[in-house]
């Protein structure tokens, strides 16, 4: 006898399941209320993040050597899409400055922030550890190392895609390496994870150093840009590549959210609940590499976004990935846009490396997080 479609043996008496909701056990309204509270919270959070993003984008596009009001920026955008509303900026070069320099940079910050935070969520989910992050475990430096090789040797076998593909391959290799070496029984101890990160970062750093040594002065400058991370000089062509790539990565990741939740139980229990763990793991690793590469290929190494954002949002909306992933994507966008605006405006006439800024904030946060999780309050082991 082969049962191809297994049937459940109902836990509840059949009479209960056939009648209306009112006859269900008494706990149900309670659960339903908790569910309603949670979904209200989620709605509020998304609305809040959306507003933040919009306001910040308008403000960021207006701030700079040439200061424009948010209403002027909005008017410019609306005119472009055919809505003649508001007054356009008066300055003769305002339009070109907005559309050629500031808007691509604003959009890029949003794209990269979203990509990095999503990559963080995915890594933490698959490693079962809230400290996993592309920058910390060395995925970013893996991606950067291979990108540096491409720069120094002037490789262009795939045309303008060469750099991005190299970053992707480097990121993929580093993710796979960390995954294979750092896990034990479906989980990763903090110490193992961080030490593996140290090792991978060392190798990545060594390759970058070697390339810096071998390269001529122009490629050296380029390499330094990679190591520090910056959105300076972003052009629409870059956005047109990174944007869809990141969107694709996040979109595909949305299909994996329920399985990632189950993976929190550990590998075997997840398998008992019908998750093909091997497949899930491969999918997540490829997605992390895609998302990280999309970010690293155009902005260099920007650390800690994938660490800070998911952690804060997990405290706000809980660890369920179906909400956490899109919320983190938006949160990452907000954070990186704010950081980039700060990077180019804090010091007049200077463009600070954004990777330095995020590390300045993220480093102490990481330290605090280690202390906190070690005390066991984070509840991850």
């Amino acid at each position, binding site marked *: 006898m082969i049962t191809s479609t297994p049937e459940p043996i*109902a836990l509840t008496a059949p009479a209960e399941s056939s009648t209306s909701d009112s006859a269900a056990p008494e706990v149900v309204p309670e659960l339903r209320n908790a569910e309603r509270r949670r979904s209200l919270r989620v709605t509020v959070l998304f609305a809040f993040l959306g507003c933040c993003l919009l306001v910040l984008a308008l403000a960021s596009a207006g701030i700079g050597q040439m200061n424009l009001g948010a209403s002027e920026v909005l008017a410019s955008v609306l005119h472009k899409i055919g809505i003649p509303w508001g007054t356009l900026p008066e300055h003769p070069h305002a339009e070109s400055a907005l559309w050629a320099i500031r808007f691509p940079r604003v959009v890029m910050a949003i794209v990269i922030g979203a990509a990095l935070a999503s990559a963080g969520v995915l890594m933490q989910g698959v490693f079962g550890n809230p400290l996993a992050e592309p920058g910390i475990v060395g995925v970013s430096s893996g991606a950067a190392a291979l990108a540096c090789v491409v720069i120094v040797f002037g490789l262009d076998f795939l045309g303008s895609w060469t750099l991005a593909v190299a970053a992707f391959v480097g990121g993929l290799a580093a993710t796979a390496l960390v995954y294979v070496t750092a896990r034990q029984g479906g989980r990763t101890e903090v110490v193992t994870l961080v030490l593996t990160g140290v090792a991978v970062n060392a190798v990545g750093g060594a390759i970058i150093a070697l390339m810096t040594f071998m390269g001529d002065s122009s490629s050296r400058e380029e390499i330094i840009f990679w190591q520090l991370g910056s959105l300076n000089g972003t052009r629409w062509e870059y956005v047109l590549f990174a944007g869809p790539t990141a969107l694709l990565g996040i979109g595909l990741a949305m299909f994996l959210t329920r399985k990632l939740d189950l993976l929190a139980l550990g590998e075997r229990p997840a398998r008992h609940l019908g998750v093909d763990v091997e497949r899930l793991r491969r999918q997540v690793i490829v997605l992390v590499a895609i998302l990280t590469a999309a970010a690293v290929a155009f902005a260099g190494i920007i650390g800690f976004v994938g660490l800070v954002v998911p952690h804060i949002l997990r405290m706000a909306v809980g660890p369920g990935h179906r909400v956490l992933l899109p919320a983190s994507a938006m949160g990452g966008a907000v954070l990186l846009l704010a950081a980039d605006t700060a990077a180019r405006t804090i010091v007049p006439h200077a463009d600070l490396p954004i990777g330095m800024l995020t590390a300045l904030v993220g480093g102490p946060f990481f330290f605090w997080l280690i202390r906190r999780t070690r005390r066991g309050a984070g509840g991850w082991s």
Partner: protein
Amino acid sequence: MSDSPIVHARGLNLSLGGRKILANVDIDLFPGEVVALVGPNGAGKSTLLSALCGDTDVDSGSIQINGLDLKQWKVGALARTRSVQMQDARVSFAFTATDVVRMGRAPWAGSVHEDRDETVIAEALELTETATMAGRSFPTLSGGEKARVSFARALAQETQLIMLDEPTAAMDIRYQELVLTETMARARAGVSAVVVLHDLSLAAAYADRIVLLSAGSIRAVGTPVEVLRPDILEEVYRYPVAVIEHPESGGLAVMPIRQHLRSRNIPQEELV
């Protein structure tokens, strides 16, 4: 219990590092019965369970579930057929107890049975007396509470086969009895339940059949009365035991014979 077995395993052998963990084990599990796997430490109880649920590959032998070889099962269909509660329940992030129980419904997502999710979750919480901790974060629960929530998750999966690896290890008396009473109730509803237990008196009280393992092979199979005999237990556990009838409720109780107490019971003056 006259139906065909849900699990039909023959000639299971497994060696790890030159040590025989399972030696020629045959086992059948039928719908409607509770089977207890008992035996001393290292006898292969957990390994046998792990092999039967598909976690551990055996070196030789065959395992069929509902007539189909275990290896041929798709992971999703298998999840709708058997649920497993493992020894240590850990959750990586701060999911609530309800979230964890809801995970037990994942195999039914997209089927008609999904509509009953909330009712089943509520029922599972109720049956395991975990409704009061429904909103609490799983990692902050005590060991016994975690085990009960995990048991609730296994119940919510509503499978024909339920496999429990020492579900009562971290529990006090009340919840040991609660979990096994509920396991028995599931069996009466047609489920096949297999439970790894250390407490032989618990096994005696709730199992329809007991499988006694010793050094990787089956030493005895049968009803509690057939298996829990002092001579067999003394040989397997290498410790003298007494098997007595429970004075209040009936049923067998297995007690170690404690030599130091025996000597203390005799008044000193009589020894002189």
